[in-house]
């Protein structure tokens, strides 16, 4: 059963936002992608557990772009219509590594408390 991301039970709005940012930045780490691709990948890799809504994905992309962590560019390919591709900028890479570290610490801390063990 697919879980609408925005309707997911994670309570903290900031936490949600933070994790969403982290997901997007991670997905752009190896190559530029367009918005639909990002949404697809999130859904795919979370095995449908997390889905992005258009109304929340794009504002987030624009926000990241504004912070200059990612940069969007219209790209035309022969035989296709133009699409806007986002790539990670240098400062975005920086932020990504920090957020990753922070997230890891956070998850480990939660695990210690809740006693959940990795399989």
């Amino acid at each position: 059963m697919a879980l609408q991301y925005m309707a997911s039970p994670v309570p903290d709005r900031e936490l949600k936002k933070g994790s969403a940012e982290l997901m997007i930045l991670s997905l752009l780490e190896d190559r530029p992608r367009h918005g639909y691709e990002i949404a697809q990948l999130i859904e795919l890799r979370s095995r449908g557990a997390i889905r992005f809504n258009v109304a929340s994905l794009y504002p987030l992309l624009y926000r990241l772009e504004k912070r200059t962590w990612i940069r969007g560019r219209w790209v035309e390919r022969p035989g296709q219509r133009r699409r806007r591709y986002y790539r990670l900028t240098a400062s975005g890479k920086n932020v990504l590594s920090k957020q990753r570290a922070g997230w890891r610490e956070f998850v480990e801390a939660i695990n210690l408390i809740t006693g959940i063990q990795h399989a």
Partner: protein
Amino acid sequence: MPDFKVEIRERLAELGLSPVREAEIVEELSQHLEEEYERALNCGASEEEARQQVFDQLNAPDLLGRELKHVERRVSQNPVTLGTEGKTNIFADLWQDLRYGLRTLLKNPAFTIVAVIALALGIGANSAIFSVVNAVLLRPLPFKNPEQLVMVWENATHLGFPKNTPAPPNFIDWQRQNTVFTGMAAMSERSFNLTGAGEPERLDGRRVSANLFDLLGVPALLGRTFVRDDDRPGAHVVLLSYSLWQRRFGSDSNVIGRVITLNGESYNVIGVMPRSVHLPAYGNWRDQVWVPIAFTNEEVTQRGSHFLDVVARIKPGITLKQAQAEMETIAARLAKEYPRFNARIGATVTPLHEELVGDIKPALLILLGAVGFVLLIACANVANLLLARAAVREKEIALRLALGASRSRLTRQFLTESVLLALLGGGFGLLLALAGIRVLKTFIPATISQTQPISIDGKVLLFTALIALVTGIVFGLAPAVHASHSNLNDSLKEGGRDSAASRKGNRIRGLLVIAEVAVSFILLIGAGLLINSFLHLRNLDPGFRTDHLLTMKVDLSELKYPDGERRSVFFDEVLRRVRTLPGVQSVAVAGNLPFTYNGDSMSIAVEGIPDPPPDQWPDVIYRAVGPGYFSTMGIPLIRGRDFTDQDRADSKHVVVIAEKTAQHYWPGQDPIGKRLKPGATTSNSPWREVIGVVKDVRQNDFIAQPKMQMYFTYRQLKDLAANALVVRTSVEPMSLASSIRNAIWAVDKDQPVADIDTMDHIVSEAIARQRFSMLLLGIFAALALVLASVGIYGVMSYSVAQRTHEIGIRMALGARRTDVLQMTVKQGLKLVGAGMLLGLAAAFLLTRVLASLLYGISATDPITFLGISLVLLAVAILASYIPALRATKVDPIIALRAQ
């Protein structure tokens, strides 16, 4: 597929995004939704289900709008014009244009420098002249409500004096009878010998009515001005000028109450006047002290003695015309009452400002017009440069048009560039004006510059900014319009050099050169006329030899030298000492030197001729001189003899007359031995026998024809009319100044010696205004000529460069160098010829305004017109010959390949 765009756009509407941004978001989101829709269909959903699924994403309650609001920026809502960069915000555009313009200007430093110099010259000249106009014509006089102040004159036009100085009894009657003035005040120039403290000094000063300064609305800087009680004989109080107070009294604020000695009498200092007080004066008269006028009993009864200047303040609500009308009525009444003196004497009321500014006004306005012309020429030049550059930039322009820039946007861009250029020119022009004003001050007539300080004030700055702006628009318009009308296709094609647009550019360039030539022709004609007229003036015969003549004022004190006997003793001793000085050829006593004084005339009775009716009594200028005056001055004696030491108070009274007087009273007869006397036949002054006739001398006015004159020997006059020395020298006159002064002080150590000057300089001062106009117009015309020739040169060079290909073909086909030379020069001359024809017609009309400034030639003087035409033609030929020469050096092979 459903149209998601409309749905998305609806949700963005309230965000107020810029249209471009909105379009981007709509495009991106709709793509996403369309793919979601297709995926849903692929997963087996019906169209309706798929649509519903997709819309649900959008419809999470106002999520999109809310989220985007945090990210996206609202912009001002302006309609978007396609092809622009999305913004039509005028200020944003302006900023962009400015930066772009500045970059373009910096990229072409040679062009920019030439254009800025041309503009700086034009604008600088305008600002400099405007600062003079501003100071002299526009700035109000430093008095209270100066527009109400007038001067009132006796009108004796029938005697040649349309503005005669009123006589005291007339002034008193005017004062009593008028209802149009809040007050009237009289003044009269008088010189004072200041003695007692330091070097004796002769001071210019004035007797004034006690109410004068109240009337002008000028309070004393220190102490007080006069009160009614001061205005009586015997009240010895004095007001000091600011400069005298600074110079002689070291700005001592305790000067009030001090007693100073003027003309041997004690005066109590009651006040110091501010620096700004300047009253109308003749020549170089500069008031340093003021005393109450305190008319004597004799003065208030003499209706024939005219020596006052009268200032009045018109009542609020009364016009100049009404004041004039009432004064005429009063004058007519006085003429009936006192026909002996006042028959046909009217009254003239003139604004004080006009009196102070005088006849410089037309000259200044003409100069202002002339610098305006210079600026026009500079504009034409820069417009030409811009046009030439626009031709080079044609491709750039076409490209921008093709990319969707609107023509109006391009026009604005070009105008911004030209205004930027003009403002740069204006900035440098202001610097030039600052320097120019310094130069102007050195040869502006003192009577003008001292009335009001000439400086760059807010008004001048505003004027400069304004003309810079207008200039930028004027010279930028042609290239801007031209550029924005260029034909896209022609310009973008390779070698599109001979496009219709560039042909049109050539036409505009040609027209600009024609205009430049026409305008500079007008200026040159104007300058030529003034120079010619000035040469006429310089060559006027003043009636005496002005070279090697030193003059000085030696005003005796009436207390110390009350009678002719004592004066003779003093002067005889001074002459004896001066004569022995090395370098002195001769020396004589004189009274009121030519061009330094505008007065001393009287009506005379001639023995054997009945007295004329009162209104037809001609005035004869008289001067009191000593023996040797005529030979020292170089005034030729035509008949009879000079005065000698034997013509004394107790011997037979004699007079020397000038030619014109002789012809008037004794036409065709020998006047020697005839007799005349001052006043009417019945007056009790003694008859004087004519002993000599001398040549006419220009006395009061260098330019006007000499009036009737006569000379008395100072020894036979009761009045103290002899007040100067003239010395003919064999060396540079000024080198003797101090030794002569010492010789005078050896006779009387308290005797002031003032205004030591050469006669050459006095004459040159007398024509200072004419020289001022001539020099300035000359400079402007020269500037115009240079600018115009640069313009002709520029256009011809450009045209030759453009026609290289054609010239190459011609030469390949066998044209000789001389043919090419001829062809090119002919092309230049066609433009110049058209300009000159146009200029000639305009000059015929415009130089008429110069008529009032011209002497001895007419405003359409054919010699000037011809001479100037030749000069302009020669310069024009030269300016087109140099590019033509370059054209002949064209190598046909290279020229053909160049295309």
